[in-house]
């Protein structure tokens, strides 16, 4: 089966290379038959990669340790669910997952557009397949999950080696969120190849319209959603599994996923200006190129071993290939943009500084600055090693000192942005619109000061959160009232119809509300508390208003690990509220890895977070670390709201912009019917 997997990858490589060449040749020589053949080769390549993916899955499920990846990432004792997850539990297999998702997304887009954008599609196919060829090359020749283990005997001869059992999946990865986290995050990284391919195609084909933006908007939104969801699943995993008390640590790999999300967010906003006003065409293409490159950069960071991270795979020799590829993509894109600059001239100029365009521009500027600061901080250890010979790591204080003020400014813009109209807004109407939300924001700030809060940034975040929630609520209320007045509908029906008739705008507001909730959650982190103590049965540990009384210690044996757990009775202000059982597991793998399983009591106000970190050398005392983390609950709720809002914007529309974007498609569909009737 390993040989079959290898064969499928090689075949996919040949097909993808042919697809790229045939599509380009077909476009240059105006031979639609060649383009069709290229598109079919792309689909066949996608099918072949699916077979390779299926082969690796089969090898994992059948405990066939002849393949190196299975021996490295799985074991006989591993539960079925984690055997599937083991496919992306180590370097080589995760590369195959990357290739599989790339092929799948490329295949779907090529199929979706077989009757649309016929002038762009040959180049889109070529860009997508070129990208696939690069990753297939790495997957076949550098990082191959089907490669076989060999044993070198005393006389120097090499023999095929099949171990009795595999090394097992890293216990830290044996958690539900970690199983779905990589595929979701990969979709988020890879999906930006679609707007990138269309943007490049529109430049190559000298297509001056916004067709590439309209067609790729749902893809961009979906990719952005997956990247955000992947980030938050990673944060949840770090919080619940890694057991260091928090959910975000400015780890290089966390940063590498946050950067494309920031530039992607900037793109989603600035693209509206191009649609509405025909402005920022060069900027939008640059943002797409940067976002796509940051996605590649993310996987480069994880796979090259260039930075140390809890997430990173061990050192590999992939780095130079990634650097070469990124440099090629960057220089080719910049050359193309420079060459087509006259075609990208804006249709309008900025009318007024008090306009939605300028609010969006400011938002773009902040997001890009935040992204650059994170990039600088992430790469600083590498840069300092190059320049000074010693690795200087940049810690959380650097990232916080830059990103917290930027984050607060962005939060402020989230609130004021909707007050601005396109082109210009009068100062008087701004004053009117600002009045009530500002009063509420100032009132919230005063209440926090009176309540004893002295932490400036947290206070600002919470006051701004109140301000923004008030503006969003006002948007919905005013809109529903106007609609109710015009149509005679009652308030609730008018509110529902208002959202359904303009999903992009109101879905966007729901996303903003989600972001505000996440900010509220983050603001709470300034007030985290931590206590640790060695306990024996009957003893207590106090933290905040909680008392944790140890009542028992139990040990047990599971299929893949042995465990010891401490039973803690939790009292709040003297009243029993929960029983928590933090656990330590020792896995039956070659290296006997030990992990701590976090015990969590979560409420909207705060999380009680308890870890059992070890037993004293005489085996009588149990080390317990407890944290009280205020408002973390709202980070997860905010994420769910953000997902909900994005889904609202993605709902198919009946009228307006989306319908307009479908016009060429309807036309194409009609033409397709005519052609097929022949």
């Amino acid at each position: 089966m390993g040989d079959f997997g290898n064969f499928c990858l090689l075949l996919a490589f040949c097909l993808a290379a042919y697809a790229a060449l045939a599509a380009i040749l077909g476009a240059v020589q105006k031979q639609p038959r060649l383009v069709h053949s290229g598109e079919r080769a792309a689909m066949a390549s996608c099918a072949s990669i699916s077979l390779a993916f299926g082969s690796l899955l089969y090898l994992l499920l059948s405990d066939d340790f002849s393949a190196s990846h299975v021996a490295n990432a799985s074991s006989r004792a591993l539960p079925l669910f984690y055997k599937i997850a083991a496919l992306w539990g180590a370097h080589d297999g995760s590369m195959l997952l990357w290739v599989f998702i790339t092929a799948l997304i490329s295949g779907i887009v090529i199929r979706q557009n077989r009757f649309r954008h016929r002038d762009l599609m040959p180049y889109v196919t070529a860009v997508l397949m070129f990208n696939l060829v690069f990753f297939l090359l790495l997957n076949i020749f550098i990082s191959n999950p089907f490669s076989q283990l060999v044993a070198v005997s005393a006389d120097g001869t090499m023999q095929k080696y099949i171990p009795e059992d595999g090394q097992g999946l890293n216990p830290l990865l044996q958690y539900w969120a970690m199983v779905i986290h990589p595929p979701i995050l990969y979709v988020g990284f890879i999906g930006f190849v679609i707007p990138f391919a269309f943007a490049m195609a529109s430049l190559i084909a000298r297509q001056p319209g916004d067709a590439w933006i309209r067609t790729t908007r749902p893809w961009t939104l979906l990719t952005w959603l997956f990247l955000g969801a992947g980030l938050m699943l990673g944060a949840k995993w770090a919080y619940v599994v890694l057991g260091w008390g928090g959910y975000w640590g400015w780890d290089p790999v966390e940063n590498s996923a946050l950067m494309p999300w920031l530039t992607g967010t900037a793109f989603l906003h600035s693209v509206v200006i191009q649609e509405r006003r025909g402005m920022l065409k060069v900027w939008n293409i640059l943002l797409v190129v940067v976002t796509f490159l940051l996605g590649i950069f993310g996987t480069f960071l994880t796979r090259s071993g260039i930075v140390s991270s809890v997430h990173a795979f061990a050192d590999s020799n992939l780095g130079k290939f990634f650097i070469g590829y990124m440099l090629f993509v960057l220089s080719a894109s910049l050359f193309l943009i420079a060459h087509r600059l006259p075609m990208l001239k804006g249709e309008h100029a900025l009318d007024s500084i008090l306009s939605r365009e300028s609010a969006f521009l400011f938002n773009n500027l902040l997001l890009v600055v935040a992204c650059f600061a994170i990039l600088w901080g992430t790469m600083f250890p590498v840069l300092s090693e190059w320049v000074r010979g010693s690795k200087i790591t940049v810690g959380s204080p650097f990232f916080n000192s830059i990103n917290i003020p930027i984050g607060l400014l962005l939060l402020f813009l989230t609130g004021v942005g909707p007050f601005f109209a396109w082109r210009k807004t009068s100062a008087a109407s701004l004053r009117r619109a600002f009045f009530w939300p500002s009063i509420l924001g100032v009132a919230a700030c005063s209440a926090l000061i009176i309540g004893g809060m002295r932490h400036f940034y947290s206070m600002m975040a919470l006051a701004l959160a109140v301000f923004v929630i008030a503006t969003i609520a006002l948007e919905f209320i005013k809109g529903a009232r106007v609609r109710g007045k015009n149509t005679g509908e009652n308030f609730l029906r008018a509110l529902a119809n208002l959202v359904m008739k303009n999903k992009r705008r109101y879905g966007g507001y729901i996303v903003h509300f989600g972001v505000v909730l996440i900010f509220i959650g983050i603001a709470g982190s300034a007030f985290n508390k931590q206590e640790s103590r060695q306990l024996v049965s009957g003893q207590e540990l106090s933290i905040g208003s909680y008392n944790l009384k140890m009542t028992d210690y139990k040990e047990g044996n599971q299929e893949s690990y042995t465990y010891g757990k401490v039973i803690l009775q939790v009292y709040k202000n003297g009243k029993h509220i929960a029983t928590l059982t933090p656990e330590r597991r020792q896995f039956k793998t070659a290296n006997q890895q030990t992990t701590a399983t976090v015990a969590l009591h979560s409420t909207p106000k705060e999380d009680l977070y308890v870890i059992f970190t070890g037993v004293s050398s005489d085996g009588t005392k149990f080390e317990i670390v407890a944290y009280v983390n205020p408002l973390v609950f709202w980070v997860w709720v905010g994420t769910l709201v953000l997902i909900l809002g994005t889904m609202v914007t993605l709902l198919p529309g009946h009228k307006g912009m989306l319908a307009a974007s479908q016009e060429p498609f309807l036309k194409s569909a009609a033409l397709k019917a005519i052609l097929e009737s022949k």
Partner: protein
Amino acid sequence: MLIFACGIIVLLAGFYTLLPLFRDSGGNMEAELLTESGLDRLLYQKAILYSTLKDLEFEFKVGRLAREDFRQLESAYKAEAAMILQKLDQMGAGTGLDEAIERDIAARKAEMFASAGSPKGDPSRCQSCGAMLLPGKKFCADCGKAIGDTVLQ
């Protein structure tokens, strides 16, 4: 067994991929017709402007715009819309999607046939409408006229 399976897959992939190369070139016309034309862009700009005007009115009603600003912006957008409608009129469009499609097809066909010259005496083209005939067909795929003796083998 493995070699056999791989052989079958290569054959299937090769057949699927190369098939379009041996088909007739009906795709030429398809490629011609399915590109985004200037008409598409104008129709899209028109839709965007209509939705912008609707939004403008809404923003005025919720009190985000002063009356004077509203009037000024409304007349600017309307002037832009008028220009686009004028261009659409010049292209003979604007009365509906179906008609636009028909006109687009007719214009492009006329262009293609004009460049190919008169069909008289050309057995590969319909004598009635001038369209290219497909091999083995008894009727013209474009106008439906019987081809009679000029059926291509």
